[in-house]
Every structure is written in structure tokens, then in C-alpha cells.
């Protein structure tokens, strides 16, 4: 039995926690079985049957397919390839600078593009904005999470 009821963790995942419940979660010792519980609740919500191995970030999961391959997949179903490779390599990219930056940052709040631009990554499937990198032009994509999935699975057993 998980330490917290499914309803509470479901609310955490789906933006329904009250601030009192949130504070309660933050103040308590971390629950040992959260990882499994979150995977189970996320699996329930998603419309595809393949097993989720890990929640990588907002909207993205590492999923095990029938052929045994482990890929990054968006909740819309769009795939981004092997989890050991940066998912950004399979995303849509938009460099936001100049007039495009003025469209959302006003006046002096726009950074000088000689120093800093925004690189937005969208899901090719659902066009969700998955990441916004703050980088100078010419900077390699940041590979944020490179998992030791073997070790994660080892701990699950």
C-alpha cells in the first residue's frame, strides 16, 4: 500500500492540490513508493498501452516498446527516439530573438541577442512547448537528463 492515497498523488500530478496538502507533502519524509505510484497513475491517464519506465519531464516519458526498445514519448504519442539520445534532436526548434522576442517581452526586458537568445523546443505532434533554452547563438543543445536507467530498474526490483 502506498503511503499516500492515490487521490492525493493524482491531484499532485494534475494540478489539483490545495496549498495545505502541498505543504503537507513537502513537510513529510519522502514516501518510498512514490516512484511506482506516479508511474501507475500516469499509466492510467495515458492512452497508449506500452509501459512507462520513467517520467522524464513535463509531457515526456521514457517508454518500453513491444520490441524492447526504450524511447522518449510525448503524452500525445509523438516519439523522440532512443532515451539515451537527446530528445531535442527530434523536436521542432524556434529561435526567439529580435521582433519575435519583442512579441512577448516588452521594452528593455528583451535580452540583447548578441548575448542571449531563446531556443524553444516544440513537440512535432501536439506543438506543446517542451523546453526553452537560454543560450547564445551557436550553443549545442543542452542534454538535460541522461539516465542510468539500468540502475533505476535495479532499484525497482
Amino acid at each position: 500500500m502506498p503511503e499516500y492515497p492515490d487521490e492525493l498523488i493524482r491531484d499532485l500530478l494534475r494540478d489539483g492540490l490545495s496549498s495545505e496538502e502541498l505543504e503537507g507533502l513537502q513537510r513529510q519524509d519522502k514516501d518510498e513508493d512514490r516512484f511506482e505510484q506516479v508511474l501507475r497513475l500516469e499509466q492510467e491517464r495515458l492512452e497508449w498501452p506500452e509501459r512507462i519506465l520513467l517520467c522524464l519531464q513535463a509531457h515526456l516519458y521514457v517508454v518500453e516498446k513491444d520490441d524492447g526498445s526504450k524511447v522518449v514519448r510525448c503524452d500525445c504519442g509523438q516519439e523522440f527516439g532512443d532515451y539515451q539520445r537527446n530528445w531535442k534532436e527530434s523536436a521542432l526548434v524556434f529561435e526567439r530573438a529580435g521582433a519575435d522576442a519583442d512579441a512577448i517581452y516588452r521594452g528593455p526586458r528583451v535580452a540583447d541577442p548578441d548575448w542571449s537568445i531563446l531556443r524553444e523546443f516544440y513537440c512535432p505532434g501536439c506543438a506543446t512547448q517542451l523546453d526553452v533554452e537560454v543560450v547564445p547563438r551557436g550553443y549545442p543543445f543542452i542534454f538535460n537528463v541522461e539516465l542510468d536507467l539500468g540502475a533505476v530498474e535495479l532499484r525497482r526490483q
Partner: protein
Amino acid sequence: MMMSLKDRLLERDRRMAELGRYEEKLELKERDPIRFELLYSKMVESVTSAHEVARRVSASPMSRELGEIIFGLYTPEGDAVALSRGLLIHVKTMSRMIKWMIENGYEDDPGFAEGDHYFNNDPYIGGAHCPDQMIVTPIWWEGELVGWAGGLTHTPETGGSEPGGFIPFARSRFDEGLFLPCVKVAENDKIKRDLEVLVERGIRSPIYWLTDNRAKITGSQIIREDVKGLIGQFGVDYFAKACREYIEDTRLAAEQRIRKVLPPGTYREVSWRGSMMPGDETLLHGPVAMTVTREGRLNFDYEGMSPAGRHPFQGTLPTIEGLVMNVVIQNLFYDLKHNEGVLLNIGLNVPKGSAGNPSSIFYPTALWGITYGAGLASGQAISRAYYAKGYREEVHATSALSSAYTAGGLDQYGRPFGAHNFEFAAAGLFATAVMDGLDTAGVEFNPEGEMGDAEIWEQMLPPVYLSREIHVDGGGYGKYRGGNGVMSLYLVSGTKDIDIGAFGAAPIYSAPGLMGGYPAGALYMWVGSRTNMHRLIAEGRPIPSGEGEDPAHPDFVEMVEARWELIPGANRSAQPAREGDLFTAMTGDGGGFGDPIERDPELILRDLENQVTTHWTARHVYCVAIDPETMEVDVAATEQLRRKQREERRSVGMPAQQYKARERETILRGDLAKPTARMFHAVLGSSEAFRRAFLEFWGLPESWEMTDPDRDDEEVE
């Protein structure tokens, strides 16, 4: 014969390396856990009481009001055992100071006698920059040194080439002010008069430095005398072993915590700052790769950090160590005993010669920018790991990069003065994965910093506040937005001799968002000189009360005739001002979390009602249709706007491989702006690992070399 402290320190390091533990067995804890915890609680009580009393001894608002102060109790070898609340990063930097004195033979000369108090503000020994000033005193019991008590304050003035301690264009350490590296400032608990004269004549507003010294010495004496009382009660052997066990107890708990909450893997973030030195404007690179090992260790690798140079935006090794301690305590070990044990499962690689570990003490560290950035990025890496494990209540974007103004000259009472306004400790906090960032909440280097009363700042510094408001739309946009900082508008008043400067950053996005959230915007400062303010006031006409809704056309610029100057990045050398001049200062804002078009329209309505966002932002960024008259959300129109936004993304977004091919050409053409090109050139030349990763990512041949962006300049005859 008693072991020297130097030998004890070596023995401590040997024991740690051999056992991988600070103390082999937790015998006292196991034998009687209540007694064990009782002594610890008495220690915490003592450092807390030192902190509270010291605040009331000092005349500096930094210490009194803002919480820029901390006290700690240390082992004889200089490892923290217990600490008060406050300026967390300096627990470790004080530890470095004690170790430095031991390693450098201070035990023999000048010696550690009862009642000696040693001062340090040299950041290459311990501390972050000249204003961080620590005083430690040895604790003796029957002829044996049994520990150290110490306190640190952040002082508002250091006697640098510009007023206020933060020197935004320092070219060397010698611009930053008066450094006293491990100097004995008191004997027999009596402050040395000659050293007070040195400070009285060496800096602009000596009262803060001098009363801070009294505060720290008072606090240290409280701890010292309490410890003697505790040793009398518990016995000296029990006390010494318990100190070691507290550290090992934390180390063990930290190891278990890492194994429990962070999945093994490598997590990478990158932070940026910039050196604004005229003619040599250079972006600074602050990457971090955090590896969680299967065994429960955390390694923070800063390989690829920009090299150190002649600018103040770098830090020292003690600074980055302190920042990491600060970050792991706040993010991971918040409920453990806060002491050296939190760092014992942590590995650090800060390359020698980098801006986080300069090879020469010649380089200034006044703004320690890129080390701070890299420290914050380390917290971000922890957030990503928390997310993967399902603990979303702990996930957050980046904390603010803040700025403030400095001033010096003659104050409203006709006295020489110099100081900085430290309301920048009330920046906007990061958004989290489950809620908006808190407005005007704090900064990461001091979890309990605050802004202070406007009246106190007006007493300390001649400019008066025309307004002090929440920075509208400051926090990074996102499903959950970053917290908004403070924007203040000041009027120069009451003095005919004043210089106004500011410390900030380069014109970069200041605090990155997370998982689709936007960063906070760039920092900036407005200065209006030769204004018509006196006439406006005399004629009873309206005067501005802030920036207003549109930062592109701020109210004060619209309402006041002046020579208006905008300083992107808010880094400004101190320059003369006159009565009636206006200027702004802003604390930073936090980064946002998640895709902004997923933001609940109800949250936007709430922000509109609180006047911390605008209808413009609601429509253009969040794609929400709200009727400004009725304040009702049009659900269908909102869905339509958001659908359109997704279509727009599909049309402007380029497949990554196509984007990479285009950008590769840009790099091959050398078509990069100078601040960026200088950064790449310096980092590619100093980090082989970064060079390899860069070549691989862009598919460039091994033989490829980047042209020196300043080469042409050198060829001018």
C-alpha cells in the same frame, strides 16, 4: 604529547579517505539517543542565540534587518557542527578560513590563544567577496583547543574604488577595497584599537564594519561560553566525540536521502553571466553536470566554465563550495542536522583557472556572478532528478539574478558615506511544478533575506523612494509563472555630492525557466538626470509612482522631462548625480515552469486583479481572451487563441536537424556577435571536454579551430 592542529587536519582527511566516513561508529547516538540529541539542540540554541543577540549589536541594516548574518560552531579541524539560520553559504566559507589558518601555521605564529578573534574577508581563503566578513575565535578547555565559534556578516561598504562594496567594473582585487586576510582583530576579547583606526580611515561608512565586528565578537563569545558550560555538563570526551558523530550522522542520512530521492544519472544545466568591461564584453559560461551515482554520491562537475579574467563576475573555490552546500541543504537536506556532513558525499570539480577557481588572487570577485549562476543551475539539476522520481512538489525553475544600486559621497547629514541598497534580497522566487513563484520572496544565497524598511534605507542613503512596487510581469511566463521582484524609483535628494552606480549583469535573460517555462527578462536600470522634478512638485503636478503597465514606455519617462538613459543589464559605474535626478533599481524575477498556454485562466484573472500582470500579456503570451470591462474569460475564444498558437508553433518551428544544419553554417562563417564569440573562443581553448562535445554536436572536423574574434583588432598598426 598533544597532536598539532595541522596533524589533526591531516588525520581527519586521511580518515575520511580511508573509511569514507567521518566517524567509524555512532556509539553515543546508539547508547543514548536522547542525550545525544539534547546536546545538539543545546548547540543549535547557542548559535541561534548568538545570531539574535549579534543582530541587535550591529548598526548595519544588513545584519539587523535583512538577515545577512550567520553563526556556526566548528570542530578543531574547522568542520561545521551546528549553525544558526541566516546567510547559509558562508558556513562553508568560514570553515575554509579556519582550515587555511591551520594549514598556514597560525597555530605557532601568531597563535590561537583564548580570547583571540581572527577576521577574514579574503574570498580566496573563505568568503565570496570583500563585503563578506567573518570572525572566528578558538574555544579552549583545560589546555586543549576543542572547537571554534564564528560569525559572518555582509557589510555594505568596503573602501573600494567605487562606493558600496560591489564594484561593477573592478579590474583587479585592488579595486574592491580593504582586505584583511586572517588578521587578529582582538586579543583577550578586546578589539585592537589600531585596527579600528585602519577601518575608520580606510572606508567610507566605517560604522557598519566596526559595529558588525562587535556583533560577531559578541556572538562568538556567547557560543564559546555556552560550549564551556556544555562541556562542564557532558564532559569533554563526550563533547568531542558527539561533534564528530553529528557530522557522520548527517553524512549517513544524506547518503540515504540521495539514494532514496534522486534516480542515478547525469543532469545538465547551463547558466550565463557576462563581463561588461568596455571593449572586452564577454559572455561567461557556467555549465554544471550533476551525476547521481548508484552508491548515493552526488558529483557536481563544472568542466567548461569560462576562464577567470580581469572582471568582477567570477568567484573562488570556497564560494562555489559554499553555494553547493547552500543548494543541497535547501533542496535535499533541509530537515537534517545542517553541518559539514551534507558535503561529505559530494564531489566537486571546478577546473583550476576557471571563473570558479581562478589561478591567481589578482582577479576580482566583487560580483561572483558565474559561480552564483552555476550554483543555481545545480539546484535546477536536482529539480530534474526529483521530477524523474515523482516528487513533483520539490521541482522548481531558477531563482532570480538580482541587482541593486550603490551610492557614495556626502549624505543628507553632511557625513562621508558609501553603501549599497540590499533590498535585492527580496527577489521573485522561481515557479515550481505545482504553483506560481512567490513575489518579492527572497534569493537563493540567503533563504531568509528580506528587503528591509524603505525608511531605514532612506536613513542610510540619501535617495528617497518615490515608489517601491511589485515588478509587473517580471517573473518568467509559464503554466506556473516565476515570482515577481521589486522595482523601485528613487529621487536624489538632500545632498549635493553623490555618485550613483549599480551592479547587475549583462543584458541576458536573467533566470531560466523549466520544462517549457520562459526565463525572467533581462535586468535594466533607468537614470533620468537634469529633471524637472522640482518644478513638478512646486506646481503640484502629478509625479510618477512607478513603471506603469508598459515597460517600453515607462510612466516616469512619460511624465518627467529629463535626459533619460537606459542601462541594459543594470551594471553601471558610479557617476555623479544631482538633486532632482531619478533612477530605478530592480531586484530580479524568478523563472517560469511549463508551457504558458497551459496556464489556468483563473490564475491570470487573479494576477490581473492583483495588478501583477496586464491584459497585453494575458492575450499575447497566455493566449487568453478576457474582457477588460467585465473581467470574464471567453472560453471558446481562449481555446481558439491557443489552437492558433499551436499552429503558429508548427509553422515557425524547424525540424531540429534542419535547424542544426543552418546553425552549423553560421558557426563556419564565424558569424557570431563578439560577446558570444569571445566566450566560445575562450572556452574551446580552455576545456578539451567542451571542445570535443562542441565539435561532435556540430559535426565539425577535429582540425576545426575557431578564429579569435579580436584578432583583427590586434592587426591595426
